[in-house]
């Protein structure tokens, strides 16, 4: 058990800077997920923690010790790979015990640990099989078992669920969470799937272009994104962005979307954006669930407007609607009984209590 600290970590490959100075503190027992699009440096960061990549500059500490020049085997970490990386010529038990056997653990101890991990992962009856006789999900369990038996300071997961089909992925996600609840080992988990990040993490680290965009709890990132990238990356369907400008109408702060559509801001929001320049191009960020059918008795801060739908997607418990506003395609979520269908006119309402205002140039959420 240990905390992991990264201080100004840089990774440069010849001319390309894959990781551009990362600072990250991961507490003991914490489950941290690094998430971002491909090429954002998340896997490189994980591999640097593992010791599989040298760091160009900065410091990595595990349990308070700087491990920059410590070989992987002496870092006391365990890693689960995307393609499982099981040893094909060994049985499940041999795969799981390989590390312990190399360290010359007593046989009884090895057997005890393997049995314990196999029970925990529900693979006890597969213990004598070879990897090729296992399904993808079972292989991934074995790969996790191989990590668990080592009782390492830190677990590292490199997109472990990407090779599984959607249904199995959901199941394994829960499995990983259960394992973490039992063993409480500090975990760093890399994925490009924001749903995986949100569901698994104590804290999510959103990365982009080799930098950390934002660190926070899943709810924190969802409700208070710091940048346009985080706002657009977290949440599915993604947040809508509509060009807008602020203006004062009769002493009250309004947000104008089109020539036709302008809404007064609710008092809390108006106070927050008081200092923002008027009549400058801004972006309004609104999550789909804050665009819904207009109700007969509107709440304060919820403003109605009329539009014509382009496309609707019935999902069963809700219907996703798409329409165009100022050239931007907007997604909303309405009740399946609200009468939304392709090409129909509809009266919608936006909940401005949950709006975000973004600087269009810098992408910073104000």
């Amino acid at each position, binding site marked *: 058990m240990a905390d992991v600290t990264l201080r100004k970590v840089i990774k440069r490959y010849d001319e390309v800077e894959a990781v551009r100075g990362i600072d990250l503190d991961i507490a003991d027992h914490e489950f941290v997920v690094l998430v971002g699009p491909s090429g954002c440096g998340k896997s490189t960061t994980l591999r640097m923690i*593992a*010791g*599989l990549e040298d760091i160009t500059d900065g410091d990595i500490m595990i349990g308070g010790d700087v491990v920059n020049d410590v*070989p*992987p*085997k002496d870092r006391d*970490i*365990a*890693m689960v*790979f*995307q*393609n*499982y*990386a*099981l*040893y*094909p*010529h060994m049985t499940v038990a041999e795969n799981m015990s*390989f*590390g312990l056997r*190399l*360290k010359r653990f007593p046989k009884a101890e090895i057997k005890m640990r393997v049995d314990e991990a196999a029970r925990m992962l529900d693979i006890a009856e597969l213990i004598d099989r070879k*990897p*090729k006789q296992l399904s993808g999900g079972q*292989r991934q369990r074995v790969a996790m078992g*191989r990590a668990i038996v*080592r009782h390492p300071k830190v677990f590292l997961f490199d997109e472990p669920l990407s090779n599984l089909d959607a249904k199995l992925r959901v199941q394994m996600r829960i499995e990983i969470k259960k394992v973490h609840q039992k063993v409480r080992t500090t975990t760093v988990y890399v994925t490009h799937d924001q749903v995986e990040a949100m569901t698994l993490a104590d804290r999510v680290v959103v990365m982009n272009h080799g930098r950390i965009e934002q660190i926070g709890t899943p709810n924190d990132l969802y409700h208070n994104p710091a940048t346009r990238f985080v706002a657009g990356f977290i949440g599915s369907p993604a947040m809508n962005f509509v060009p807008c400008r602020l203006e004062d109408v009769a002493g009250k702060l309004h947000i104008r979307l089109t020539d036709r559509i302008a809404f007064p801001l609710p008092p809390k929001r108006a106070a927050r954006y008081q200092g923002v320049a008027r009549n400058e191009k801004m972006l309004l960020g609104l999550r789909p669930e804050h665009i819904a059918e207009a109700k007969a008795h509107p709440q304060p801060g919820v403003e109605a407007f009329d539009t014509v739908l382009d496309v609707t997607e019935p999902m069963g418990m809700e219907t996703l609607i798409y329409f165009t506003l100022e050239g931007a395609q907007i997604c909303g979520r309405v009740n399946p009984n609200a009468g939304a269908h392709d090409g129909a006119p509809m009266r919608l309402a936006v909940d401005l209590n949950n709006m975000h205002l973004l600087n269009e140039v810098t992408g910073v959420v104000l």
Partner: protein
Amino acid sequence: MASTVVISKGAPTRTVKYGSMSRDRIWALRWSYFFLALFAIFSLVPPLYMLITSLKSSAEISAATNPWWVFHPTLENYISLLTSNQFLRFFWNSAWVSIVVVTITMLISVPAAFALARMRFWGSATLATGVFLTYLIPDSLLFIPLFKMFAVVGDWTGIQLINRWYVLLLIYPTLTVPFCTWIMIGYFASIPKELDEAAIIDGASWFQTLTRIFIPVALPGLIAATIFAFTVSWAQFLYPLVFTTSTDQLVLPVGIITSLIKGDVFNWGQIMTGALLGAAPPLIIYAFLMDYYIAGLTAGATKG
């Protein structure tokens, strides 16, 4: 009457009813069997002729009878060869040289291939290509300079290497090591990178990664390389012909030619028997290792 009509109508529609795919497949099969038969005849006729001739007496070989039939089968050729100390000496020399050469080759080429495939170091890619290029130089060009080299070494150090069977232990690896290294580089390169990374994180040293992960996983490649090295050293003719001359130093292929052809007298029966007996060990080794080779291939061992 009615029922027979039904059957005779039903039967042809059922037999013809194999879509276009299976019709293609049948033709593909016919062609493959045709060529398979052609190649089988082509490659099996010479050993068959050897077998037939080895069972004949010298008199029957020179008689003007059907050469493809044995009228008076005899084992006299086998008996005289297998009781001849000279022939057994050739056999022993060949076996000893081949086994040692295979061992030397594997001890050099497997670690070399591992280093070239996995430990990225300065110039490793160039070196890997260089290894292959050395194999492309025909060995028939090299025997004169090599002979000269060993002669010079003999003059300078007094270590006599020419006309000693163990000189072959130095020469054959120059033929086998480059190619075996090349084969093994290919096999090692096909092993996913994550496998050695997993081993490294599990605490394995480079040497343990090689012996406990790479060698078992690349076993089919290792067997292919072993078969190649054995075949090269067992069947090599030019080098032993040049470098060894005394009868007690000869290996089997050269020994058969030098001892069984006396001037213009060809002892065909014994030559054929000797060739057949000489072909047996590689055949046995192939038969034995092929099972592992194919089993290893079909297991898809490298897919994690």
